[in-house]
């Protein structure tokens, strides 16, 4: 009898989704009335369904949309997000902080001041959360996610020379 490990229950940001894609999705869904079926949205975005679905997952995870019987509906937060013209991601700061790998990175940064993507990837791997089975590619995906989401959301700062993340400096 083989032992089965429990599936991870944490929210995990899809490794191939960038903040800009979620912003585009919400803006386009909003521009066509806030309710649109998935194939039409894919057509409007010029994206394959395979590309669109993880972006939709990310938008749903962030509370910007909900999907119902094949339709995508903007939530109240999504409508507000669509209308905001600058620093949209700062609006989602608290939500991004609840999703992995950002949650663990913030936890490590609060204790160690600076962390590398490797530290975050190792810590998550210990609880079974990985974006890729190869350690080097997993670390690269974690680093990319941290750069593309956590900096935009003003959660982390990053120094490319040392490869270290730290708590973001407060911005006006």
């Amino acid at each position, binding site marked *: 009898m083989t032992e089965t490990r429990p599936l991870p229950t944490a929210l995990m940001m899809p490794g191939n989704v960038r903040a800009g894609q979620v912003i585009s*999705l919400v803006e386009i869904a909003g521009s066509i009335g806030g309710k649109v079926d998935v194939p039409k949205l894919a057509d409007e975005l010029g994206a394959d369904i395979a590309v669109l679905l993880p972006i939709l997952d990310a938008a749903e995870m962030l509370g910007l949309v909900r999907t119902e019987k094949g339709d995508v509906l903007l939530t109240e937060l999504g409508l507000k997000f669509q209308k905001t013209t600058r620093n949209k991601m700062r609006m989602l700061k608290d939500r991004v902080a609840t999703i992995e790998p950002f949650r663990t990175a913030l936890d490590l940064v609060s204790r160690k001041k600076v962390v590398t993507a490797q530290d975050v990837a190792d810590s998550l791997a210990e609880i079974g959360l990985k974006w890729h089975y190869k350690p080097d590619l997993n670390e690269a995906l974690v680093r990319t996610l941290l750069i593309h989401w956590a*900096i935009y959301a003003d959660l982390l700062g990053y120094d*490319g020379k040392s490869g270290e993340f730290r708590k973001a400096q407060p911005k006006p």
Partner: protein
Amino acid sequence: MSQQQAQPLAGTTIVAVEHVNLDYHKEREPLPVLVDVSMTAKRDELVAITGPSGCGKSTLLRIVAGLIRPSAGKVMVLGSEVKGPRADVSMVFQNFVLLPWRTALENVLFGLSPRKDLTEEQKREKAKAALEVAGLSGFEDVYPGELSGGMKQRVGVARALATEPRVMLLDEPFSSLDDLTAERLRKETYTLLINPQTSVQSVILVSHNVEEIIELADKVVVLSGRPARVVGEVEVKMPRPRNKKSEEFFQWVDKVYTLLS
């Protein structure tokens, strides 16, 4: 990015391309590429140049930038003839042209390196401000290889804006980006550049994407033929923001395609 020089009034010609010819030379024989090309870009205008692939659109843009000397004719920017690269004209390239071993901030600083009138600290402030305008606050110490295509192009825009140019030249700036990123950046481009907060007074965009041109341009200059000539100009008199699904939008697209075909 405040400007202290006197600002030309709306409608003033900022860029004038006057009877420009360009010949390349093949085995000592002149090979004409551009023939008698004239066009203008006025204050607060975004002018698009379009035409078939290889017709010389980007070459014309490089002549405006002072990177290529025309065989005949001249280009005037704010009343003075372009005789080489100049500080009041900046260019954003299709493939970003970033130095991979320099961070985003260092790439923007590189554009400011000829400015002897600024201290290093002033250059850093200007570079940081340009990155913020381009939507990259917080990404100063990130290397190009760690950025997405859209973010790399934002660094390219920041580098061009940091020099406080009067004229911004965009060479197919969205064609290396995925559709989603390109759409978002297109939406931001017009308001980012034609904006009293920046120094930019005219923008010239080269693109082969007619829908993109109608979305952005106040005027379209159509090049065609070999050698290329201006076969027509279209003033896009459509309010902004422009609805790409509207019948009116399709009519403007059709006008440009008619000139191209």
